[in-house]
């Protein structure tokens, strides 16, 4: 679905953001793209959408080179940017103006998503808060039924109930034909939502695994003493004890803690790489 080969890109000379980056994303999955501030998450999503052009390598989405932004490519891709624009019109007029460009747009689904997010449909977009506008855009994005859906920090500006609603609608929207990529630094917002984790650091993809594989290979638990926890990859202390990530040698069942995984990958890249390869 999305194939990035040997991608090089920089905003400034001698300061590369990506160098020989390779990434293949398949349909039927929800990918969580994680990375530190400035790691290039948004830039990578922009490459996928054709808003930035590779300086080396190629970025193909559904067989189309993204940089050409051909209509047949764009009508099968929707991007929800972190900072977005909505015209100063009513929701119904927004749909009238934008929906004709998306052949699989479903008005019924759009109404259902708005209802789920508790957005009144007769309100003008200008009269809405940032969070409400974002929910309108997410609802529209899902209703377009595009094959590729790219979201940059979609939970920013959403209140706590809306984050749960967001997870619910995204989980319901995924299908075998659809590839959803969600970039965020609020890793906990993606708990139980994504099925693939991609971590970007130091100009390249440093981790790309299915959550089942992560569960097989790593164990996330809280222990009273780190020394007794076994092969610890990363530990974080709190009042409840020590949260640790260890190698899952005993095939224990645990729940992935995205934040712990992220920190483990960045702190122990060689050990993580050894465990997963």
């Amino acid at each position, binding site marked *: 679905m999305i194939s990035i080969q040997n991608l090089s890109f920089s905003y400034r000379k001698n300061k590369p953001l990506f160098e020989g980056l390779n990434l293949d994303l398949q349909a039927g999955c929800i990918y969580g793209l994680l990375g530190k501030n400035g790691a290039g998450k948004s830039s990578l999503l922009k490459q996928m959408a054709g808003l*930035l052009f590779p300086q080396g390598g190629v970025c193909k989405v559904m067989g189309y080179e993204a940089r050409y932004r051909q209509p*047949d490519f764009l009508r099968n891709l929707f991007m929800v*940017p972190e*900072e*977005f624009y909505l015209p100063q*019109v009513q929701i119904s007029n927004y749909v*009238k*103006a934008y929906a004709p*460009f998306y052949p699989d747009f479903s008005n019924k689904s759009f109404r259902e998503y708005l209802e789920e997010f508790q957005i009144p449909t007769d309100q003008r977009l200008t009269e809405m808060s940032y969070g409400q506008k974002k929910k309108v855009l997410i609802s529209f994005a899902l209703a377009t039924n595009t094959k590729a859906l790219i979201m940059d920090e979609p939970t920013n500006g959403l209140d706590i109930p809306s984050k749960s609603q967001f997870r619910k609608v995204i989980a319901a929207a995924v299908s075998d034909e659809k590839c959803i990529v969600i970039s965020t630094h609020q890793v906990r917002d993606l708990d139980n939502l994504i099925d693939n984790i991609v971590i970007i650091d130091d100009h390249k993809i440093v981790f790309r695994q299915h959550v089942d594989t992560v569960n097989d290979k790593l164990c996330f638990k809280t222990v009273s003493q780190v020394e007794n926890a076994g092969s610890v990859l990363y530990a974080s202390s709190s009042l409840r004890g020590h949260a640790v990530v260890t190698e899952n040698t005993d095939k224990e069942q645990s729940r992935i803690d995205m934040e712990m995984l992220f920190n483990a990958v960045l702190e122990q890249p060689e050990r993580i790489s050894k465990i997963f390869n």
Partner: protein
Amino acid sequence: MQVNNILSANRFGAYFKKHLVDNYRFYILSLIVLTGILLIALLFVLFIGPNINLYSDLLPSYLVGLYVAGLLFTSKSFNELGNKPQGMDYLLLPASHLEKFLTTLLITTIGFLIVYHAAFFLAVKAGESILFIRKGTHLINDLAYSKPETWIVNYYLWFIAQAILLMGTLYFNKYSFIKTFFCFFLFIAGMYFINSIFAEIFFHKYMADWKQQFPFIGINILLPLKMEAGITEYTNNFVMLGLPKKAWQPLLFAGKYFIPPILWTVAYFKLRDKEI
């Protein structure tokens, strides 16, 4: 079904409609403001100016309005690209670059000319009515008897200026009007100085100074009075050594018909290469 990724009538229609829906408030407001400003300007000309009683007397106001309003309006094109969220929305909308560009081109040329003429007509009619009420006189339409060749050149120049501004809006996301004019001035100055170098090389002896030339027009030279072996005397008469007809005619033809399309094409390719 195979999708036409260059130009599709349905998609172009949908995009044009979307553009109008997004901008209709701005366009209506612009029409009202333009008509108001033109009316005030015409009333000023009719009542303050000396003996205005012909339509042709209004031509300077008409042309100033055409250039100022037209070029300011054109400089507002692709404004969305100067704003990241709007730019992303614009570039990611599933219409081809050609459809997006043609929409802007049609609106800033044909659309603007229709609206401007409607506004000017309304302003003239309102001005005439006020003139009749105050002075009991009408303006005489002498333009029906004038030769259009004498003033049609202004339209050629307007299209060239429009094309330059449109291209400028794609090269400069902010303050495109000022930046484009500055670049245009630099371009003309550059051409003038390059031309002066060649003029000096070829005609140094005959030129009073290096400024006696202009690109594509000609060179002012001193007319030789007597030329003998090793001795040349000059009169004080300057003559214009202009381009020969077979050189300036194709240049004029290209200037009239090719420069705007060439600049529009450059602007289109710039839009295609736009990154945000």
